[in-house]
């Protein structure tokens, strides 16, 4: 509910683009528009099967076979799709206790996940429990603020990745939560935790300036927001300059709709998180137009604030 209030507050200041697009789409030639669909999950916690029929909440909901069918349907309707997970794939049903993540990774690969970031529960079977299962994942794990260089995972987790989808260049980086006090030290070993905000600023600058990305996405397992000033998705969104979308996890936050937060450049950043257990698939469609800085294009946008 706090989110709803925040959202309304933004709305009140006129920060949310509640007005209709001032220029009708028809003004542009078809080729001038590109659509990119981002699909995402977080904290699905080994919920391979739908929630049991006797579950106190969400009975019969979720399940990876249904999620796969939904993703397939969206792919048939939208040409350019990227699919991400924001961590805590592991732990939550006996599938994990028995098969150690193999099935989760294999199914995610079949579903065409483009990348995932690392949640704290990925450490539940120690670093070896990540390393041994990576062979089942046909997609990369992206994390930018854990330094694994003195561990057995050295070189296996990438700090960022550039995706090209339908001519749109997307830069993705990943942020993980502080491990100390959350994860048994023997499970993360010599993994070093670096400051998420500093890392985010470094990553987005590099992606923007060196790679000229059109869209920058942060896959975060920091958590949506906290009562104290613990680093969170909302803080990352507000304190960065070029990150467009924060796909969050960790706090199992069910957002009715994504949050909009003004960043350091005065632009709106989207923060989304879809609860846990694979109950919801997040979908965000970005529409781009060719930017030629012409007179025509100027009217397509409204200055923010």
């Amino acid at each position: 509910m706090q989110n709803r209030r925040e959202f309304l507050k933004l709305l009140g200041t006129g920060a949310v683009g509640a007005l209709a697009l001032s220029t009708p789409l028809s003004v542009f030639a078809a080729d001038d528009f590109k659509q990119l669909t981002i699909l995402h999950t977080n904290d699905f916690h080994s919920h391979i099967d739908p929630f049991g029929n006797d579950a106190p909440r969400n009975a019969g909901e979720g399940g990876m076979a249904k999620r796969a069918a939904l993703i397939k349907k969206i792919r048939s309707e939208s040409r350019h799709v990227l699919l991400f997970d924001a961590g805590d794939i592991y732990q939550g049903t006996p599938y994990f206790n028995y098969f150690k993540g193999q099935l989760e990774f294999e199914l995610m690969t079949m579903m065409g996940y483009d990348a995932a970031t690392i949640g704290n529960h990925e450490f539940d079977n120690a670093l070896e429990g990540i390393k041994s299962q990576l062979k089942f994942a046909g997609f990369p794990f992206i994390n930018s603020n854990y330094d694994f260089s003195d561990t057995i995972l050295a070189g296996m987790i990438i700090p960022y990745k550039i995706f090209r989808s339908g001519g749109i260049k997307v830069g993705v980086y990943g942020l993980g939560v502080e491990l100390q006090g959350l994860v048994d030290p023997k499970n993360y070993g010599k993994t070093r935790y670096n400051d998420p905000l500093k890392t985010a600023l470094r990553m987005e600058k590099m992606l923007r300036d060196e790679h000229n990305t059109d869209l920058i996405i942060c896959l975060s397992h920091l958590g949506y927001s906290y009562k104290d000033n613990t680093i969170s998705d909302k803080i990352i969104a507000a304190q960065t300059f070029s990150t467009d979308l924060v796909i969050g996890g960790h706090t199992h936050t069910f957002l009715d709709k994504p949050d909009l937060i003004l960043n350091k450049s005065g632009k709106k950043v989207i923060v989304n998180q879809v609860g846990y257990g694979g109950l919801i698939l997040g979908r965000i469609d970005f529409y781009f137009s060719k930017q030629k800085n012409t007179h025509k294009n100027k009217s397509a946008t409204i200055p923010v604030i």
Partner: protein
Amino acid sequence: MQTFNNIKRTSSGCKPAMAILLFIAVLLSGCHSLMMTKVDYTNIRLDSTLNITPDPKIESVILPFRTKLMNDMEAVLCTSKDALLGGRPESPLTNFCADLILQEADSICLKQYPDVHVSVSMVNRGGLRVPIPKGEVKVQDMFELMPFENEIVFLKMSGVRMRQFIDHMALRGGEGVSGMSFGIREGKGFNPEIQGKPLDDTKSYWLVTSDYIANGGDGFEILSTVKDRVSTGVKFRDMFINHLRIMGQKGISIEAKTDGRVYDAK
């Protein structure tokens, strides 16, 4: 589907006076030929309102895993004479679990940690999520009893710290304990005994509990600063499953009762 309009990737659309500056900036950075003009979003619930057939290919991959899991989950470990319900200050469930933990901890120490001599065990009432059912007890029941991946931890505590620890258990209305007894009087421990002898503030004692409690969970911060700590890596649930399986093989049924180890001392 709902829409956010006009979320901008570049700062175009700004005041004309800034256009030239912007144009130069764009040239300098040599970037952004695309501008974000619109964003739609929808968080799609995978519930009964979503009319979609589960992907048969995914189903076929899951099936053998599910079958194996179901077979294992259905495996009967042993039987229980009664349903073991949990409660405070003590209960059949908390007593049975704490006794089992102390007994297993002894054998772990004998094998692996000869310098550790465990006198008392503690399992938090809140960590035992469901009763142990009457009749057949299955692997599934152990997953429901203990869904968390807690591990066995040994802590060496001074008598003074042990007293504070007992006070906190008393404040919480009692927890699952074995190898000790105490009364609860005005939210504090009363006449605490360890292995049948009054708690001695000058002695030290080894406690076995979960990593969750040892890390200060449920308000037990008093434990989180203990220096002498052994993390065994042995999972509670695995230990329980093995223990119950052996009970079943020996034809021993689960039995537990309350015996006044934690009591109201008003």
